[in-house]
C-alpha cells in the first residue's frame, strides 16, 4: 500500500456546508461514485439527495416505513438501494423517486446494503445474521443467494468485483470469494461494526466495538494496525480511509472526528465535528472532502 503523502494539514477539517433537513438522527451519508452528490438516510425514514458542495437539498425519497440505515447508489447514478428497519431492501429510481422494487426476505432489520460493480445485484446485510443477494435484473423476489454463516448480526458489507466482504457482530470479517468459491473468515475477537475497504483493495478497515479500528491485510488476514482513541461501544458507526489511503477516518460517540495516520496509528487530528454521535463518514473519492452524519440531525461537509 502506498503511503500517503498528504500531510495532516490537508485533511478536511473545515466545515464547508451543513446539510440540514433530516428530522432526527442521520444514520448514513454516502457520496455517490463521482463524489458530486451525496445521499443521506435517517430516522425520519427518508432518503435525501444533496449536493454537498453547494449545500443544496435536491430530492427526498420517502417510502421507508422505518429508519433508513444504509443507502447506496449505483455507479451510473440511476438507481438507489436502501435498507433499514423495515426489513426490506428498497430499489429506487433516482430521477422519479419511485420505488422500483422492494426486496423482502430478511427476517429482521437490514443494516447495510451495497450494489455490485454492475449494479445488477444488491447485497444486503441483516440483523438476521445473513447476507442476501438480490437480483435487480430479474423480477424474482427471492434472493439469489443467502449467506448465513454469520453467527450474529451482520453490520456492514463491501463488495469488490469478485468478493463480498462483510463484518459481523460475531467478530468476524468474512470474505466470500465468488470466483474461488471460498469463504475467508477473519475473526477479530471483537464485534465488528463497520468495514471499509482501502482504495487499493488490499486492506480492510474494521471498526470494532471495543473502540478500536483494525486494519487487516486481506490476503493474509494479518492485523496490520489498530487505531484507538475514539469511543465506539454501542453505536453503529462508520469508518473509512481517505481516498489516498494515508489516513483513517472515524467518528466517535462524543461527536468527535478522528484522523489517524494509517501507518503510525497515531491520531493526526481530532476535533469535535458534531454535537452527538458521528454515525457515518464518507470520504470523497477524489477530493479532500468528506461528509459526516450525526445523530444530531445534520450532515456536514468537510473540506481541507
Amino acid at each position: 500500500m502506498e503511503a500517503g503523502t498528504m500531510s495532516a494539514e490537508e485533511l478536511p477539517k473545515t466545515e464547508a456546508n451543513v446539510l440540514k433537513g433530516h428530522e432526527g438522527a442521520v444514520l448514513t451519508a454516502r457520496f455517490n461514485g463521482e463524489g458530486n452528490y451525496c445521499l443521506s438516510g435517517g430516522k425520519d425514514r427518508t432518503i435525501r439527495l444533496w449536493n454537498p458542495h453547494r449545500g443544496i437539498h435536491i430530492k427526498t425519497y420517502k417510502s421507508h416505513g422505518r429508519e433508513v440505515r444504509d443507502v447506496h447508489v449505483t455507479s451510473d447514478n440511476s438507481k438507489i438501494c436502501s435498507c433499514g428497519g423495515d426489513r426490506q431492501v428498497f430499489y429506487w429510481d433516482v430521477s422519479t423517486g419511485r420505488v422500483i422494487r422492494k426486496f423482502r426476505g430478511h427476517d429482521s432489520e437490514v443494516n447495510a446494503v451495497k450494489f455490485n460493480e454492475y449494479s445488477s445485484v444488491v447485497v444486503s446485510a441483516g440483523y438476521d445474521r445473513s447476507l442476501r443477494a438480490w437480483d435487480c435484473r430479474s423480477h424474482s423476489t427471492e434472493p439469489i443467494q443467502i449467506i448465513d454463516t454469520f453467527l450474529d448480526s451482520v453490520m456492514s458489507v463491501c463488495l469488490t468485483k469478485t468478493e463480498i466482504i462483510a463484518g459481523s457482530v460475531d467478530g468476524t470479517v468474512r470474505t466470500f470469494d465468488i470466483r474461488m468459491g471460498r469463504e475467508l473468515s477473519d475473526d477479530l475477537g471483537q464485534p465488528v461494526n463497520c468495514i471499509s475497504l482501502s482504495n487499493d483493495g488490499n486492506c480492510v478497515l474494521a471498526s470494532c466495538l471495543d473502540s478500536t479500528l483494525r486494519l487487516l491485510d486481506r490476503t493474509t488476514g494479518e492485523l496490520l494496525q489498530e487505531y484507538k482513541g475514539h469511543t465506539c461501544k454501542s453505536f453503529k458507526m462508520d469508518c473509512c480511509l481517505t481516498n489516498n489511503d494515508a489516513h483513517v477516518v472515524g467518528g466517535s460517540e462524543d461527536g468527535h472526528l478522528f484522523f489517524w495516520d494509517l501507518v503510525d496509528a497515531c491520531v493526526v487530528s481530532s476535533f469535535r465535528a458534531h454535537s452527538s454521535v458521528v454515525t457515518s463518514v464518507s470520504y470523497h473519492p477524489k477530493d479532500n472532502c468528506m461528509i459526516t452524519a450525526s445523530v444530531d440531525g445534520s450532515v456536514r461537509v468537510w473540506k481541507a
Partner: protein
Amino acid sequence: MESDEDDFVFFGTPIEREEDTISRKKKSIAEASGQLRTLAPWKQEVRDEEGRRRFHGAFSGGFSAGYFNTVGSKEGWTPQTFTSSRKKRAEFKQQDLSHFLDDDEKAELEGNSLGTSMQFDTFGFTAAEIARKQSEKEQNERPSAIPGPAPDELVVPATDPIGVRLMLKMGWRRGRSVKSSKSTHYDARREARKAFLAFAGPEDAEVEDAMETAAELPTDDIIQFQKSTPVYVLNPKQDMHGLGYDPFKGAPEFRDNKRSHLPGNRESGHKRLLPKKDGLFSFKPTNVAPGFGIGALEELDAEDEDVYASGYDFEAFVEEAEEPSRLAIEDKKKSSSKEHGVLPGFKAASNSDYQLERFHPPVVPKDFVPHPKFPATLEVNQKLTEVPPSEVPPPVDNNLKVLIEGVATLVARCGPLFEELSREKNQSNPLFDFLSGGDGNDYYKRKLWEARQKHGDKTKPLLNEKIAPNAQKMTPNAQKMTAETRGNILGEKPLNRTAKDLKSVVPATDNVNLQFHLSDTFTEPASFVEPTEIAKPFQHDPAKQERFEQYLKEKYRGGLRTIDAGGSSKMSEAARARERLEFEAAAEARTQGKWGKESKLSSQQILGASAGLGLQFTSGGSEINGVSQTEEVIKKSLFPKREEFQWRPAPILCKRFDLIDPYMGKPPPPPRSRSKLDSLIFMPDYVKAATEEKNTVSNNISLPQVDAKRRTNVMDAEDVEVETVEVENVERPVDLYKAIFSDDSDDEEENINTNQQEDPTKKIEAANTTLSRLMAGDFLESLGKELGLEVPPDQPYKPPQATQKPPTVQDNPQNLEPINSAAPNIQSTKEFDHEIMKKETKVRRDKSSSDDEKSRRRSKRDYDSSSDSSDGYRDRHSSSRHKGRKKEHRKHSKHRHHESSSRSRHSADKEYRDSKREKRKRRD
C-alpha cells in the same frame, strides 16, 4: 325378520310400514304400562318410545339409550333460543339428598321412615310421627351439614304432643319403643296394660315419678323387662364421625356402647345419669365373655364381640355393671383430657408428682443479628468494644510497615495464638520487635485493631456501625467468613512460618500477601514450598486474591461450594464465571510450578524463578501481572484468526458478478447426515452400499462423506467455534479408492471425466445417490484406516495462514468443553497457555449467552422506541448482540444443519486439523 335383515344389505332408508311401528309402539306401551314392571329391574329392557331396544350387550352395540346420536337432549342439535342471563338469572337450586337418590332409594327411605309404627296409633305415635315429620320438613328447608332426613333418634318433637302427654298420664313411659320389633310391641302393650292398671291402682305417685323422670323407675319396677327402650337422647352430634360410626369399635372397653345401637336398645334411660367415674370403672370387660378370650395377636372385632356378648345371658350382669350410656361416654370424651388416657380399672391421679416442665424461650436481645459467631470472631467481637488505639504514624521503614501490617492481618485472622507463636519464633529477630513492645509496637497495635475491625466487620455489622463506622469503609468487599476463620473453627494449625522465610520474603516485595502462606498451610502442605509469585497470581487485587485462595481451598478440600465462593455477591454471574476460569488456570499453574524450596529463599531466586516462569510460559510475564494483561496478549496472538471454508456461490450470483461459477458442472454437495444417530442407523447398510455402489463411489468420489462422519463426532462436542471447516471437494483425489479398488482404476479415470461433464444433467441422480455414497464413504474411510492407508487430505488450495498455528487441539476453540468440565490436566505449559486462551474465549462467550435473547428483544424495542425521538441512533443491538454469540451460534448451527443442505461447510475441525497437518507435512 331379524335374521332376514342380517342377510341382506339395504341401501337407503327403508320405509317403515305403519303396522310395524304401530305394533312396536303398542308393545312398548304395553310393556311400559306394567307387564315388565313386574320383572326384576335387571331383567327389564330399556326401550325407547318406539319400543326399540336401546341397551345392547357389549358385543352387540353397547349402550345407545337415551337420545341416541344427539347431544343428549330431546331437542338434539336444534339450537335453543338464547335467553339473556342478565335478565333471567339462573335459578340457584339447593341440592339435597333426594336429588341424588334413585326412585328405589327414595322409596326405601320412605318405607324406613314410616314402617309399621302406624299400626300402633293407639299410643299416640302418630302425633310423634307428625312432629317428627314436621321437624324433618323444617330441616329440609334449612340445609344442614348432613343432608337428607334426619335419623329418627335425633329428631324428637320439641313439645310433647297431646297424645304423648295423655300417654304419659296413662302410664306410658317415655322411651318405650313401639315399632322396633314384635317383642317390643308386645312389651309395650303389656306396659300399657300395666299403666292402665296403675291408673286404677294406688300407685299414682309412682306413676308420677315415672312421668317425671324415667330414671328411678326401672329399679323399683317389679317387672324387669325391656328397660332399654330407646330414650331419645338429644345427643348433639359433636364429633366428626360419620353417622353411626362407632368410635369405640376398636376399644373393647367401650364395647358396651355398641349395644346402645342395637335394635334391642336395652339400656334404660337412667343409666346416663350415672356418674362418670362409675362409668369408668364399670368398663370391666364384661362384654367380652369372661372365660372366653381372644389371643393377643388377634384383633377384637365385631365378630368376636358378638359371639361372646350377645349369645349369653349377661343381661342381669350387664345391668348390674351399669353400662355407661352413650351420652356418658361422650360426656367423658368432652371432659378433660386427663381422663382420656386413663385405662379402665385405673384412676387418674388427682395429684401427680410428675409435672411437665415448661421453659420459656430465651429472650432474643433487641440488637441481635442472626449471624453465626465463631470462636475466632467472637474474640474479635469482644475486642471490638475496646477503645481503639490511637492512630499512629507508620514506621519509617517501609519493609517494617509491610511486615507489621501483614502480621496484624494474620493475627486478626488467626487469633492471638498466632501472635504468641510468631513472637516466640522470632524472638531473636529484631524485625519482630514490635511484637514484644519494641519499635513499631504502637503502629502494630493500631493495625491489629484495624485488621480486627475489618475482620469482624462482616459478622457484626451493627456493632461496627456503632463503634467504628469507618471500619466498614475500609472493607467494602469483606467476605462473610473467610477460609481462615473457617480453618480456625476447624482447629487447623495456623501459619507455622520460619523467621527465615519472612525475612527473605517480606523485604523482597512490597505487596507480599502473607495470608497466602497461611491459607497454604490449610490447603496443601506441598504448596507451601511454592514460590509466592506463582501462588499469588492476583496480587494486584487483594480481594480477588482472597477469593482465589478460597477457591483453592475448596478445590482441594472438596465438599459443597458456598454460593458466594466464586466471588463477592456484587459480581455479576459472568464476571464470576470468568474469575473462576482464571482461578482454575492459576491453580493449574500452581500445581505445575513446583519449584524447590530454595527458590524462594532469596529474592534473587524468586526473580529467577519468575524469569524461569517467563520462559516456561509463553506469556508468563503477563500471567504474573494479572490475567487481564494476559488476556490482552492472548487476544493479540489469537486475533485476527483466519479460517477458510468452502463457499458455494449461487450460479446466478456468479453470473451477475460476471464471474465463472467455480462450481459449475459440479454436483451439488451431498446432504449431510444430521447426527451421529443417523449414521448409526445406516450402519448396517454400509457394507452393502459400499459393494453395490462401488462404481458410484469411485466415480464422483468425494470424501465429504468421511467428513460427515467426522463431523458427527464433533457435533457432540460443542462446536462453539465460529465456523467449522468444510473443504468438501468434489474433485478429491481417488488414491484411496484406487488403492482399494485398483482393478478398474483406468475405467474410473475415464468415468470421472465423463461423469463430471454429465453431472449437471445427472444432478437428481447424484442427489439420490449421495446418501448411499455417504455410507460408502464412511465405510471406505474405516476400511482405509484398517488397511493403514492415509486418507488423502482434501485441500484444493492452501490457505496461506493455516500453518501459523501449531496443530494442537487448543488451537481450535471449537473444542471448548463445557464450562463445568474439570480442567484438563495439561502437561506442557504451552498447552496451558492455549488453555487459558480457550477459556478466555469461552468465558466471553458464556458470559454473553445469558442475556442474549433478552438483549435482542430489548434492542429491538430500543429501535422502535427511539425511532421517534431524536435521541439518537443507538445501535444497541450491535453491542448487545455480540454478547450472545455462543448461543446464537448454537442456534445457528442447528439451523444450518437442518436447512442449508446447499452449503458445503460441514467438516469437523478435526478434519481441518488433519488437513492442516497434512499441508504442513507437504510443505516441509
